[in-house]
């Protein structure tokens, strides 16, 4: 569906995108994460054919994105740019009708789309009276025009309240069920970690890692956290049971202990803790979050 091959884009001495290879399959919900200036938006613009690459090739549905044949692909493509700017002097409905005409989508679908994104009541209001969240919803409706098979969403939940975010992902789920390919970026990693099929971590224009959240966690090899609830006086027995293992210093609190161990040592630690029997009242294992994974790959820059 989307093939990015050794693509580089430089602005003067700065390589905004540097030798990126990426392949995104049909029907996939793909996330692109990275710190500010990592190259996400530039990669989006390259994939949409909005800026020419210095080298490499990008194809969507087999068509080079800068070729004449890409016009037909654009009819099946929706794009929501970061910080979308719309026309203040148009109403919500007029805005959609304008873009529908450009896209060759039926004007009759506009009112329904506005209702779908929660703007049915505001369709006759000028965009200048819209809040940031309403503009974002209108931008999303614009991206949905023409029943797209491919969606590019750059920071799509910017300005949305929690209910808006829930509704937004509900629509995305419905579209994914219909086989639509979705590529999105987000700074709110906890928001996308449960929702994307795969994601790529970008840093300084390069792709640092690609895979499912679980794959990236394993590849990053970040430590796991064991939180134990202990019976009275169980601390010495715990220290004795763990004596043979390579662990960071145990952090004790009253009736509690926190252990940090490498993923490879998980089973050995689990066996040692289990050997304590009823002296351990409860056990909770915490996987590294996507934020931890991201910080690991991006060198700590958030």
């Amino acid at each position, binding site marked *: 569906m989307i093939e990015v091959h050794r693509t580089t884009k430089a602005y003067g001495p700065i390589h905004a995108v540097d030798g990126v290879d990426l392949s995104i399959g049909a029907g996939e919900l793909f996330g692109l994460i990275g710190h500010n200036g990592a190259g996400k938006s530039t990669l989006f613009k390259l994939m949409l054919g*909005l800026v020419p690459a210095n080298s490499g090739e990008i194809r969507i549905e087999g068509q080079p994105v800068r070729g004449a044949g890409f*016009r037909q692909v654009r*009819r099946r*493509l929706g*794009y929501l740019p970061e910080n979308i*700017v719309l026309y203040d002097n148009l109403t919500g409905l007029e805005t959609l009708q304008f873009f529908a005409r*450009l896209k060759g989508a039926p004007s009759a679908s506009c009112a329904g789309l506005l209702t779908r994104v929660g703007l049915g009541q505001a369709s006759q209001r000028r965009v200048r009276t819209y809040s940031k969240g309403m503009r974002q919803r209108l931008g999303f409706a614009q991206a949905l025009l023409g029943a797209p098979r491919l969606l*590019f969403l750059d920071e799509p939940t910017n300005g949305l309240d929690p209910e808006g975010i829930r509704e937004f992902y509900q629509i995305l789920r419905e579209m994914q069920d219909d086989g639509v390919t979705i590529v999105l970026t987000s700074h709110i990693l906890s928001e996308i970690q449960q929702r994307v099929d795969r994601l790529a971590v970008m840093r300084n224009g390069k792709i640092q890692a690609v895979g499912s959240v679980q794959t990236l966690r394993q590849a990053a090899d970040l430590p796991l956290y064991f939180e134990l609830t202990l019976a009275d006086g169980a601390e010495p027995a715990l220290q004795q049971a763990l004596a043979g293992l390579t662990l960071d210093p145990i952090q004790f609190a009253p009736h509690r202990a926190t252990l940090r161990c490498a993923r490879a040592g998980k089973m050995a630690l689990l066996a040692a803790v289990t050997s304590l029997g009823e002296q351990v009242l409860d056990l909770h294992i915490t996987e590294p979050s996507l934020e931890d994974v991201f910080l690991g790959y991006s060198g700590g820059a958030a």
Partner: protein
Amino acid sequence: MSLLGIEWQQVGAIAAKEFRDRIRNRWVLAITLVFTVFALVISYFGAASQGSVGLQGIEATIASLVSLVIYLLPLIALILGFDAIVGERERGSLDLLLSMPITRFELLLGKYLGLAAALTSSTVIGFGLVGIIIGLNLPLDALYQYVGFMLSSVLLGLVFLSLAVTVSVFTQDRTRASGIAIALWFFFVLVFDLLLLGALVLSGGQVMGALFPYLLLLNPADVFRILNIFGQDDLRTMYGLSSVFPAALANPAYLGAIMSAWIILPLGLAAWRFRQ
């Protein structure tokens, strides 16, 4: 609908939005009023310096209106078009437009045609109203001259609109674009003739004398002046054009073609640059 490899539906969508924007923000109304009021005042008081007021003959009226149009219309066209592309780029809306199934040329053409429709409407309605008022007392051939003046005014506006849109493609921000647009107005409306005259005087009329009429054609404002003045005997004598401009060059079709070239060439340059 595709003709000449251009999807006209997309061009029409962009043009219709530009035109509707100018109707909705009352730009067309305001400029129409400006043209109507100025043209009426000039028609009525144009001969006040000779001690008379009231509607004059059509030749004197057109001569006065030409002076008005040469100053006013290029400025209005440049202000109208200088941010056509750079404004979209600076606001951040250009990427969204270009993500649509529309080529850069179609976007540029749609922008130009929409703005041209707004400018042409104002020019035709503004001067047309005055034409109707003064036309009540004029013979048919005088009206013919007036219609010619209106058409050439439309062409002059379209030339400077084309230059403005070109500036908006070449510049990176609106401030710079507006500065260049004003500089173009100064150059073509105020400076060009002075430079030409200066060169003529400095060369003692030897070399420059022969080149002078051809150099005049390099300025669309001068072409407009020649179009309106040369065809009228009294004015030609009054402006001294008979002595410096050969009649062979003053064919309205020829001058109209030069004005059209002044529209097409800058737009072609803009389209080439925008595609880069």
